[in-house]
C-alpha cells in the first residue's frame, strides 16, 4: 500500500508530517508530493487516486482499513475538474525534486523546443502567447524579452522575482515547493532567448521550504540547463523588495530602495546590465507555452488577457486554495461558487483582490470579470491574483488604517509621498475613527491619496490609495 501526502509548507503547517509518520508506522509507503491546492482538505491523503482530508493521525487506521469517508477521486473533485491547469498541471501528482517525475510529465520539452527553434523564434512564441507579467503590472513578457535580447552587452541577467509578499497570494510558493524544475526550465528558456548566462531567484526569507526545494532542484538540474547558471538569493523581510528595482538593489547588496525609471531594468538592470525581471508564475508558464505553442496558450482567456491565471482564494473563504482558470471568469463565481463563500458562514462583506495594495470590492461588483482591463476600469487591480475574502464582521475603517500602517512600515523611505504620506494617513484615519472633523479629514485623506498615487516612485506608495479609497467609497458608513 502506498499513499501520497504533500510536503509543501501549507501541508506541513496543517500537520502533514505527523500524518505521514502515522502511515509509515503502520507499514505504509508514503510518497511526498506537491499539493493539489485544495487547502481546506490539507493534510490531504491520496490512496489509489482517492482523496481523504483533512486527515489527522487518528484517521490513519480507518483509511488503511478502507472504513474512512473519502472525497472520491481527487481528479474528479469539482474544485479540480473546473480548472484549466496549465502552469499547475503537475500539482499533486509529482514529487517536487524528482527528475524522473519531471521527465515523465513533459519536463524539459519546452527547453528542448527553444533550443531547436532558436532564440528569436522562442521570443516570437512567447509574444504570440500574449503572456503578460504575472507579478501584477501585466506587462507583456515577450516585449520585455525582446528588449533585453536586442540590448548589446557582454553580460545579461535573468532575475526571477520570488518575493511574494502580498497577503492572499501563495502561487509562487506552490510553484517553488511543488514544481521547482518548471521554474528552472522557464528561467533557462528566458536565458537562452535573450542571451543571458546567469540567473538569480530572489526568494523571500519567510519561505524557508521554497528556498530549500529550489536549491536542491538547482543542484540536481545544473547539467541540464548549462551553460546557464542559477543562484538563489534570500531576501531579508522587506516587502518593498518585491518591486523590481528595489529587488535588484537588494541582490547587489544595497538597501532595498526603489530606483527611478528610466533607465528600464531591461536595459540597465542588475549591476547595470540588461536584465529580464519576471515573476515566478510568468517564468513557470513559459515551458508549457514552448511545449504546446503560443497560439494554444492564447486560445485561453479573454480580450487582451490571454491564457490562464492561477487564482488564489484566501482569507475567510470556505474552500480556499489554488484555482487556475482562463481569464474572464467573474469574481462572484470565484468567491461564491468555487470558494463556497465564507468559512465563518457569515455573509461576505467584501473581497480584497491583488494583495495589500489592491482595492476592496463589495458583492455588488461581483459581476466583474477577472481580466486586467476590466479591473483597471473599475479602479481595481488583479495584481498577483490573490482574493482575500472578508465576512461582515470586518471593520473597513480599520482595514483602511492598516493599509496606511503597512505602507509606513514597509516604505523604503526614498520618496516623500510614500514615506510621510503613509504616516500622515494613519494619523488622519485615526482622527476619522475617533469622530473628529470627519468631513474635513475625509477630504484630507482623499487629497493625500491623490498625492501618493501620482507622486510616489513605485507601487507601494502609489497603490496604497486603492485599498484606502475603495474602503471609503464602498463602505462610507464605516467612516461615520
Amino acid at each position: 500500500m502506498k499513499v501520497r501526502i504533500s510536503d509543501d509548507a501549507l501541508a506541513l503547517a496543517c500537520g502533514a508530517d505527523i500524518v505521514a509518520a502515522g502511515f509509515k508506522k503502520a507499514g505504509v509507503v508514503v510518497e511526498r508530493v506537491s499539493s493539489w491546492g485544495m487547502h481546506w482538505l490539507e493534510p490531504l491523503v491520496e490512496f489509489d487516486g482517492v482523496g481523504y482530508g483533512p486527515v489527522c493521525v487518528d484517521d490513519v487506521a480507518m483509511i488503511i482499513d478502507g472504513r474512512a469517508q473519502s472525497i472520491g477521486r481527487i481528479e474528479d473533485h469539482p474544485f479540480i475538474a473546473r480548472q484549466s491547469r496549465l502552469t499547475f498541471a503537475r500539482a499533486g501528482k509529482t514529487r517536487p525534486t524528482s527528475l524522473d517525475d519531471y521527465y515523465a510529465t513533459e519536463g524539459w520539452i519546452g527547453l528542448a523546443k527553444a533550443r531547436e527553434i532558436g532564440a528569436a523564434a522562442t521570443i516570437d512564441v512567447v509574444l504570440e502567447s500574449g503572456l503578460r507579467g504575472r507579478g501584477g503590472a501585466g506587462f507583456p513578457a515577450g516585449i520585455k524579452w525582446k528588449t533585453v535580447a536586442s540590448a548589446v552587452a557582454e553580460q545579461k541577467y535573468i532575475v526571477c522575482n520570488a518575493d511574494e509578499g502580498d497577503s492572499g497570494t501563495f502561487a509562487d510558493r506552490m510553484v517553488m515547493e511543488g514544481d521547482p524544475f518548471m521554474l528552472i526550465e522557464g528561467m533557462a528558456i528566458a536565458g537562452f532567448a535573450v542571451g543571458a548566462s546567469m540567473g538569480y531567484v530572489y526568494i523571500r526569507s519567510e519561505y524557508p521550504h521554497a528556498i530549500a526545494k529550489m536549491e536542491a532542484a538547482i543542484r540536481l538540474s545544473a547539467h541540464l540547463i548549462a551553460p546557464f547558471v542559477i543562484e538563489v538569493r534570500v531576501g531579508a523581510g522587506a516587502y518593498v523588495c518585491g518591486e523590481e528595482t528595489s529587488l535588484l538593489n537588494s541582490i547587489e547588496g544595497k538597501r532595498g530602495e526603489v530606483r527611478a525609471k528610466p533607465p528600464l531594468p531591461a536595459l540597465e538592470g542588475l549591476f547595470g546590465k540588461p536584465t529580464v525581471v519576471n515573476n515566478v508564475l510568468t517564468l513557470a508558464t513559459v515551458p508549457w507555452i514552448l511545449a504546446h505553442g503560443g497560439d494554444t496558450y492564447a486560445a485561453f482567456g479573454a480580450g487582451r488577457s490571454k491564457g490562464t491565471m492561477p487564482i488564489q482564494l484566501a482569507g475567510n473563504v470556505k474552500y480556499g486554495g489554488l484555482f487556475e482558470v482562463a481569464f474572464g471568469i467573474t469574481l462572484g463565481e470565484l468567491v461564491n461558487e468555487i470558494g463556497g463563500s465564507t468559512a465563518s458562514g457569515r455573509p461576505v462583506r467584501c473581497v480584497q483582490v491583488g494583495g495589500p495594495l489592491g482595492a476592496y470590492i463589495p458583492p455588488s461588483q461581483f459581476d466583474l470579470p477577472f481580466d486586467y482591463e476590466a479591473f483597471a476600469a473599475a479602479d481595481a487591480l488583479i495584481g498577483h491574483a490573490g482574493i482575500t475574502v472578508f465576512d461582515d464582521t470586518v471593520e473597513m475603517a480599520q482595514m483602511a488604517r492598516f493599509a496606511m500602517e503597512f505602507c509606513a512600515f514597509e516604505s523604503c523611505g526614498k520618496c516623500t509621498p510614500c514615506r510621510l504620506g503613509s504616516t500622515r494617513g494613519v494619523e488622519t484615519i485615526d482622527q476619522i475613527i475617533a469622530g473628529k472633523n470627519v468631513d474635513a479629514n475625509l477630504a484630507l485623506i482623499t487629497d493625500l491619496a491623490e498625492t501618493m498615487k501620482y507622486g510616489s516612485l513605485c507601487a507601494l506608495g502609489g497603490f496604497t490609495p486603492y485599498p484606502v479609497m475603495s474602503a471609503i467609497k464602498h463602505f462610507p458608513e464605516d467612516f461615520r
Partner: protein
Amino acid sequence: MTSIDDILIEHHDQEGPLLPILHDVQKAFGHVSEDAMRQIAETLNLTRAEVYGVVSFYHDLRMEVETRPVLKLCRSEACKARGVEALVPLAESQSRVKVETVYCLGLCSVGPAAMVGDQVHARLNQDRFSALMAAI
C-alpha cells in the same frame, strides 16, 4: 565554530555578496554586531555606514542579541480576515516569547499562521496558539 573570516572567505567570489554574508553572520552569531559590520565593511571595501545602512534597512537583520525564543505571527489581511487579531492579546500578555509581527507567510487560506524557526503552524485558535507558545 564558524568565524566571520570563514564566512567572508566563503563568499569571496560572489557577485553582490553583502546580503548573503549578513544572513550567514546572523545565522552563526544570532545578530550582526558592530565589530562584524566593521570587519565586513573593510573586506568588501565599503564604509561602515554603508553596511550599517543595509543592516538597519532589513527587518530580518538585528544588531542586538535576542535571547528569548522568537515566534513570527502573521497579521496580514488574510490572517486578519481569519481572526488573528483575537490572538494578539494573548501574545502581548506574556514576555517569555518574543512575538514578532510578520506580513504574510503564504498560508493565507489556512490562517491564522505563525512561524517558529523554519517550522510553520496554521489554523491557530486560542488553544492551539497557547499550546504553541508554551511549547517553544
